């Protein structure tokens, strides 16, 4: 357990530090944030044609309301936490990769739900938008990370088969 937490904190610190570098911001964070805005706009357009995405901004052409997707809103930090928890936990690498793929999809999927919900909450009531944006959704995203990780841990083979070498 101690080894897991030490690795978890170390990997998390490294990935978070990497995320903050100008290189990662330019080549990964900004493009990813733009992709999120376009994906959210694409999904919203299925039922609401008055939405457009410009860079990291999601805007309503009907009333001009716009949300800008910033650091902390793009789900990257939550993904980093999940990655660190999966990599730090003792498991075969195949299972880790599967966990990372499914986990990232789950976290980013919920994050798109979050962005779309905030976009409409903001048009409805700014106070509720602030409350949901700053507190409620942050907690829910972290709960999502925790659930995904617990589900992944449950799906792992028994501990003995992880730690023991394969028999000839």
């Amino acid at each position, binding site marked *: *357990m101690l080894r897991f*937490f030490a690795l*978890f904190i170390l990997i*998390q*610190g490294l990935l*978070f*530090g990497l995320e*903050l570098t100008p290189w990662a911001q330019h080549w990964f964070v900004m493009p990813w944030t733009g992709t999120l805005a376009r994906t959210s706009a694409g999904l919203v357009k299925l039922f609401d044609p008055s939405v457009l995405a410009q860079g990291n901004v999601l805007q309503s052409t009907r009333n001009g309301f716009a949300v800008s997707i910033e*650091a*902390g809103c793009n789900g990257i*930090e*939550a993904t*980093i*936490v999940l990655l660190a928890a999966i990599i730090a936990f003792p498991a075969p690498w195949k299972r880790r990769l599967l966990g990372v793929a499914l986990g990232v999809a789950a976290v980013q999927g919920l994050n798109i739900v979050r962005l779309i919900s905030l976009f409409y909450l903001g048009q409805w009531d700014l106070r509720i938008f602030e409350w949901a944006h*700053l*507190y*409620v959704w*942050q*907690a829910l*995203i*972290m*709960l999502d*990370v*925790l*659930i995904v990780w*617990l*589900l992944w*841990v*449950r799906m*792992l083979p*028994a*501990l*003995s088969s992880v*730690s023991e070498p394969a028999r000839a």
Partner: protein
Amino acid sequence: MRKGALPRFLLLVFAWLFLSFIVWRVSAPFLVWPVTLLSHAFSAMFLSDLVNGVEQQGSAIIFLTSLRPAQATTTISASGLLTVEVDTLIYTFGLPLLAALTLATRQPRSMRTLGLAYAVLLPLETWSVVAQFLKDVAITAGPGVASQTGFSAWQREVIAFAYQFGALILPTVGPAVVWVLAHRAFLERLSGRFAPRPASRQA
């Protein structure tokens, strides 16, 4: 693990989360009070040349600095010195999540566990609050104020990292990690892991 234990646990988490958010918002000024004390103690020990005092107004912590404002728009105190207000809610919203997770486990002495977990999180919350204060005076307030702080370029980089870590990672990860550590036995039952024991000898 019993089938359906995880969904049942999650339902309880959501139910407690709703209630916990209300309690947290109402009692925030009381919950934040130790963070104010810790921020004050930290400032007195390490930032005494920058900070004259630390006060609390509701759930906000106010740093009374010894810095002169560089712009008319900057918040100043009656003495004409710069004050920096930090909204603690954005760094303590993990408390309702921690409370919901703890109460949903339905373990004995859960209130005691919650109290201990709350105490463990206080230094992390203080980190976030102090890091925002330092970021505000060393970076956001502009060169006129930043030059008075005396921080070098690399120190400002460290402050920026500490602020980002304190704002984006600690408020959510801290409560989750504390909960995992405090509920190893529960998690072991839920997942069949976390506490690997040496193989028992067969008679």
